[in-house]
C-alpha cells in the first residue's frame, strides 16, 4: 500500500503495528526530487545514514551524475526500509552552491584559494618544524563522529605510530565517550551488549535521558509500532522535558538536572529491598554486588525524592516497573552522558541489568547509545582516546601487538598515559604547548562549551589550525588552512552504528570541484611526511578504502570488534552485519554476553577501570585482585551535588539538546529547505509557571545568561519541568551576518555561549546539561510564535497557542508498507 505523507508534520510516518516476538514489518520510504519518478532513476547506490547513530540503510538515486533522492533498504535489519526526516531530505545539501571546492590558506590575515600542493606543503612544513623543535606533543588531531572506519583507522595509525602523538580524539567525546566508558567499567571492554532487535521482545523499555523519538527516530518508529500491536511494552521515561517518549510512558520521571545518580541509586535500592534480584546470575557472572547493596542501603525513594524533586511514589512505581519486567531493555543517552556524574549514572543502569540478570537474551539488553553515525568507529579504530581494536594502553602486551602489526618500535606508540581527551587538548592549546590542531569534520567553534573561550583559543596566533570540512564553518573561518572534503555519497567506506551493525556506503556521485575524500587527504599527508616503519618502508601500506578495510581487519582480529569475516563485497547488496563477525560467527553476532562475560579478563580487557567519583585510574594489580576471573564488575557510586547550582542571580537550571530536524551544527540540515523551515532559528523553552511568574509569553525575545555568556532567542512555553530552561544547541553563526561569532548586530545565538567548561572526570565528556542561568525579556513578541517545532519535545503547552509545524508539498514522502 502506497501513501504520501508529510514527513515534517509526521516525522515518524505511518504505523505498521506488530506483536511481541514478531518480525517488524517492512515499510519502504522514498523521497525523490521534484519531477523525478522511480522509473527515471538511472542507478540506485547503496549507502547508510550519517545524520544520527541509527545506521539506517538506504539507496541513493542517481540521474545524470547527480543525486536525485533516497529510498530505504527493505532488506536491512536496522530500518526495514524506513527513513527519518533528516535522511529523507538532507541529501540535497550535498549540492549546495556554497560547498568548499578548493583549498584555502591564510595570507595576510585572509583565507584565499590555492591548489592542493600549496595547502599540503604548508601543513607538512609546519608539522616538520614542530616535530623538530617541540616534539610530537605539539601536534594534535581533533576528528569527528562522521568519517568512515577506513579513515579513522588511517588517522589513528598516522597519528599514533607516525607522528607519535598522544593527542588524537573525536568530537565523539561530546557524544558517546560515556557510553564507551560505562561499558568498559562494567564489562571490562567497549561493545554494545544488546541489539535493536531487543525492542521486538522487551516487555519493559526504560529510556534514561534518551529522547529516542528525536535522536534515533527510526527505532522510535519501531517502539511506536509495538505500542500499537499485541502485547505492547510498558515504557519508563526519565527526562525533564515533555518528549514524545514521555507522552507514551507508563511512568515519567522529570528529575532536577544533575541528580541521575541519586535517582538510580534509589531505583537500585528498591529492587534490592524487594529482592527482585537474580542471585544466581550475580554469583556466576559478577563481582562487587555486596558493595552496591551496602552503598544503596540508605538511598530510599524518599531520600532521592528530596534531591531529584520527583514524588517518592513515582520512584517506587518506576522501580516496580523495572523490577517486574521479564525482558527489560534499557537505553541511555545525553540526559545521562552530558550531565553531572555521567559515567557513574550510566554504570548504574548496567548494574540494574547485572543484578536482574537482564542480559544476553532476546528483549533483555542494554543500549548505551551513541549520538553520531560513526562514533562507534572512532572507538574501535582508536581515533577517540582509545587504542585501535579496544586495546588497553596499560597493557604492554597489547601495545606490542600494535607495534608488531605496524612494524614499529613499541616506544613510538605513546602509552605512558591514556590518550589525551579533546577538552584537555584544547587546554594544552590554550597554554601554548599544543601548537597545531588538525580538525576534521567537526565544528568546535559552535559545539564545545564556553564558546568565547574556544574562539579565543582557535584564534591564537601561535596555534596553527587546519580544518577539513564541506563548508566554511565557524571553525573553518578561524583556520590557517582549509581543506575541502568529500562526504557521504561522494566516497566509499564502511561504518558501524550503535548496535554494532556494519554498513557499507558507496560512492554515488563525484565530489564538487577539487574536494577529496578524507582518506585520500590522510594518505597524501602520510606520504608527504614520509612516515616510515622501523625497516624504512612506508608506515601506511594501503591506498584506497578497500585496502584500508583489509588493514583494519588485521588489527581487529581476535579482539572483541573482530571484522575478519567481513569484506566490502559481503556488505554490498544485502543487510548490514553486526560485529564480531569472524570464522566462529560468519553471520555476525546479535547479542554479546549470551553466555557470561567475555572480555573482562585482566589479560584481555580494554581498561582496568576508574574511580567513578574521581576518575582516578586503577592499575592491573588492583584489577586482578578485584576481578581475577574476568566477570562483570558492579561498581557503586555515591551521589555528589552538581558543581553549579542555581542561586539568586542565576535561578534557573539550563540544559541544551537536539531537535529531530537538525544534526550537529546544521552544516547539512541548515542547508536543506524542508528541515530548515521546520526549525529555522534558535529558541528558548520554559515552563508555563515560570513564564507566567516572569510575565513572559510565547514568542517574546528573551535572553539566557550564565557566568560565561549570553544568547537570545524567542520563548516557547512548554510542559518542561519548572525551574528548567532548554535551548537547542545546533545554531551557530554561519548563516548570520556575523559569520562565526556574535557581534554588534548579531546577538549570541549559540547555546554554548552559556555552557560551562566542566567534564565528567571518568569519561571526560563535557557537561552540557548543568549550568545555572538567568532569564529576562529583551522585547515583547510581535505575535509570531517561537521558531520551535510543535511536533516534538518543544510542543507548546497550550496546543492552540501556535500553528502546527508542517512541511507542505515539498515534504511529501512515499511510504510503501508491504
Amino acid at each position: 500500500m502506497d501513501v504520501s505523507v508529510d514527513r515534517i508534520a509526521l516525522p515518524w510516518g505511518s504505523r505498521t503495528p506488530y506483536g511481541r516476538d514478531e518480525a517488524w514489518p517492512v515499510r519502504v520510504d522514498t523521497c525523490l526530487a521534484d519531477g523525478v519518478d522511480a522509473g527515471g532513476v538511472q542507478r540506485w547506490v547503496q549507502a547508510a545514514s550519517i545524520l544520527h547513530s541509527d545506521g539506517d540503510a538506504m539507496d541513493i538515486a542517481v540521474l545524470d551524475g547527480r543525486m536525485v533522492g533516497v529510498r530505504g533498504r527493505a532488506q536491512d535489519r536496522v530500518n526495514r526500509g524506513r527513513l527519518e526526516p533528516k535522511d529523507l531530505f538532507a541529501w540535497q545539501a550535498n549540492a549546495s552552491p556554497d560547498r568548499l571546492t578548493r583549498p584555502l590558506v591564510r595570507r595576510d590575515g585572509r583565507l584565499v584559494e590555492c591548489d592542493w600542493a600549496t595547502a599540503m606543503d604548508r601543513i607538512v612544513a609546519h608539522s616538520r618544524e614542530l616535530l623538530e623543535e617541540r616534539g610530537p606533543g605539539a601536534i594534535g588531531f581533533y576528528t569527528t563522529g562522521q568519517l568512515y572506519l577506513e579513515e579513522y583507522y588511517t588517522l589513528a595509525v598516522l597519528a599514533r605510530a607516525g607522528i607519535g602523538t598522544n593527542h588524537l580524539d573525536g568530537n565523539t567525546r561530546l557524544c558517546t565517550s560515556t557510553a564507551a566508558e560505562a561499558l568498559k567499567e562494567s564489562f571490562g571492554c567497549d561493545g554494545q551488549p544488546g541489539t535493536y532487535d531487543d525492542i521486538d521482545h522487551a516487555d519493559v523499555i526504560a529510556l534514561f535521558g534518551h529522547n529516542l523519538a528525536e535522536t534515533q527516530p527510526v527505532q522510535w518508529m519501531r517502539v511506536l509500532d509495538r505500542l500499537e500491536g499485541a502485547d505492547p511494552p510498558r515504557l519508563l521515561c526519565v527526562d525533564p522535558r515533555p518528549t514524545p517518549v514521555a507522552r507514551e510512558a507508563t511512568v515519567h520521571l522529570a528529575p532536577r538536572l544533575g541528580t541521575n545518580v541519586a535517582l538510580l541509586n534509589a531505583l537500585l535500592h528498591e529492587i534490592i529491598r524487594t529482592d527482585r534480584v537474580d542471585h544466581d546470575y550475580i554469583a556466576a557472572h559478577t563481582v562487587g554486588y555486596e558493595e552496591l547493596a551496602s552503598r544503596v542501603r540508605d538511598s530510599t525513594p524518599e531520600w532521592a525524592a528530596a534531591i531529584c524533586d520527583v514524588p517518592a511514589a513515582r520512584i517506587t512505581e518506576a522501580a516496580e516497573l523495572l523490577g517486574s519486567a521479564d525482558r527489560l531493555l534499557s537505553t541511555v543517552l545525553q540526559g545521562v552522558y552530558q550531565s553531572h556524574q555521567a559515567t557513574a549514572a550510566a554504570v548504574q543502569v548496567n548494574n540494574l541489568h547485572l543484578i536482574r540478570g537482564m542480559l544476553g537474551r532476546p528483549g533483555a539488553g542494554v543500549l548505551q547509545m551513541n549520538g553520531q553515525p560513526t562514533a562507534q568507529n572512532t572507538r574501535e579504530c582508536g581515533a577517540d582516546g582509545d587504542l585501535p581494536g579496544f586495546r588497553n594502553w596499560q597493557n604492554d602486551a597489547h601495545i606490542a601487538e600494535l607495534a608488531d602489526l605496524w612494524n614499529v618500535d613499541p616506544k613510538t606508540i605513546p602509552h605512558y598515559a591514556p590518550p589525551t581527551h579533546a577538552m584537555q587538548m584544547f587546554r594544552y592549546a590554550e597554554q601554548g604547548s599544543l601548537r597545531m590542531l588538525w580538525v576534521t569534520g567537526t565544528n568546535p567553534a559552535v559545539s564545545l562549551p564556553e564558546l568565547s573561550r574556544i574562539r579565543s583559543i582557535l584564534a591564537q596566533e601561535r596555534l596553527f589550525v587546519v580544518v577539513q570540512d564541506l563548508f566554511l564553518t565557524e571553525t573553518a573561518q578561524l583556520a590557517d588552512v582549509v581543506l575541502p572534503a568529500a562526504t557521504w555519497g561522494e566516497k566509499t567506506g564502511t561504518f558501524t552504528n550503535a548496535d554494532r551493525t556494519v554498513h557499507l556506503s558507496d560512492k554515488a556521485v563525484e565530489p564538487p570541484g577539487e574536494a577529496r575524500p578524507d582518506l585520500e587527504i590522510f594518505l597524501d599527508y602520510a606520504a608527504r611526511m614520509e612516515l616510515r616503519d622501523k625497516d624504512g618502508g612506508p608506515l601506511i601500506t594501503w591506498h584506497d578504502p578497500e585496502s584500508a578495510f583489509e588493514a583494519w581487519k588485521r588489527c581487529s582480529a581476535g579482539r572483541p570488534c573482530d571484522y575478519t569475516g567481513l569484506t566490502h563485497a559481503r556488505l554490498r547488496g544485502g543487510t548490514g552485519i553486526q560485529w564480531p563477525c569472524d570464522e566462529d560467527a560468519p553471520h555476525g553476532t546479535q547479542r554479546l554476553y549470551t553466555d557470561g562475560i567475555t572480555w573482562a579478563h585482566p589479560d584481555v580487557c580494554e581498561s582496568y577501570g576508574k574511580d567513578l567519583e574521581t576518575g582516578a585510574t586503577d592499575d592491573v594489580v588492583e584489577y586482578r585482585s578485584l576481578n581475577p576471573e574476568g566477570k562483570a564488575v558492579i561498581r557503586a557510586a555515591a551521589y555528589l551535588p552538581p558543581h553549579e547550582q542555581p542561586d539568586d542571580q542565576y535561578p534557573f537550571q539550563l540544559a541544551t539538546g537536539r531537535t529531530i530536524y537538525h544534526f550537529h551544527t546544521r552544516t547539512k540540515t541548515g542547508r536543506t529547505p524542508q528541515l530548515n523551515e521546520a526549525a529555522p532559528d534558535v529558541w528558548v523553552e520554559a515552563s508555563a509557571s515560570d513564564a507566567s511568574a516572569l510575565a513572559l509569553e510565547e514568542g517574546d525575545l528573551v535572553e539566557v545568561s550564565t557566568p560565561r555568556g549570553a544568547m537570545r532567542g524567542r520563548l516557547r512555553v512548554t510542559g518542561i519541568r519548572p525551574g528548567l530552561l532548554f535551548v537547542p544547541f545546533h545554531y551557530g553563526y554561519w548563516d548570520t551576518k556575523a559569520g562565526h561569532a556574535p557581534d554588534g548586530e548579531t546577538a549570541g545565538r549559540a547555546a554554548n555561549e552559556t555552557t560551562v567548561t566542566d567534564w565528567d572526570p571518568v569519561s571526560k565528556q563535557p557537561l552540557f546539561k548543568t549550568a545555572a542561568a538567568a532569564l529576562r525579556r529583551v522585547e515583547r513578541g510581535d505575535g509570531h510564535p517561537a521558531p520551535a517545532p510543535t511536533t516534538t519535545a518543544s510542543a507548546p503547552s497550550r496546543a492552540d497557542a501556535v500553528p502546527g509545524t508542517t512541511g507542505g508539498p515539498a515534504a511529501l514522502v512515499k511510504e510503501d508498507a508491504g
Partner: protein
Amino acid sequence: MNGITLTLRALHHGEQRLADELTAVAERHRTEHEVHHVATDLARWSREHVQRVADTGRDHGVNLAGPADHDTSGLLSTLRQKAAEAVGRRPEPGLLLLRDLRELHLDATENSLYWEMLAQAAQATRDDPLLALASACHPQTLRQLRWTNTMIKNLSPQILTSLS
C-alpha cells in the same frame, strides 16, 4: 593524653589541612577545569572526615572543632580567579600545578598513615566505633591519593616536555 587521642588530633589537623589545601588548589587552578572541580569535590570528603573525627573525639574526651568553613566567594576569590586567568595562557603554571598536586599527594599520604595507625590501635583496644571511623574514612583518603597520582601521571608528559 594517650596515643589514640594524639592520633585523633593529628588526623583532625591533617584532614583540615588537606581540605584547605584542596580548596586552595581548586581556586588557584580554575583554568585547569578538571583539577578545579574534582579538588572541590574531594575537599568535601576531608571536611566530612574532620567532622567525624571531632564527633568520635568527643567520646574519647578530646575536644576538637568541626570543619572550618571557608568562604570562597568574595573579593579574595575574585582576585585569585583573575590571577588564574592571567597565568592560564602560559605553560609555566603547569609546573606550579604539578607542585601543588605533589603537595596534596604527600599530605594525603600522611593522613593515610595516620588512619592506618588509628585502625591498628582500634583493633588492639577492640574499640569498634574507632575502627568504624577508620574504615569509613581511610578508603576515601586512598582515593584522594590515587587521584593526585593519576593527574600527575597524565599531565607530566606534556607539561615537562613542552618547557622551552
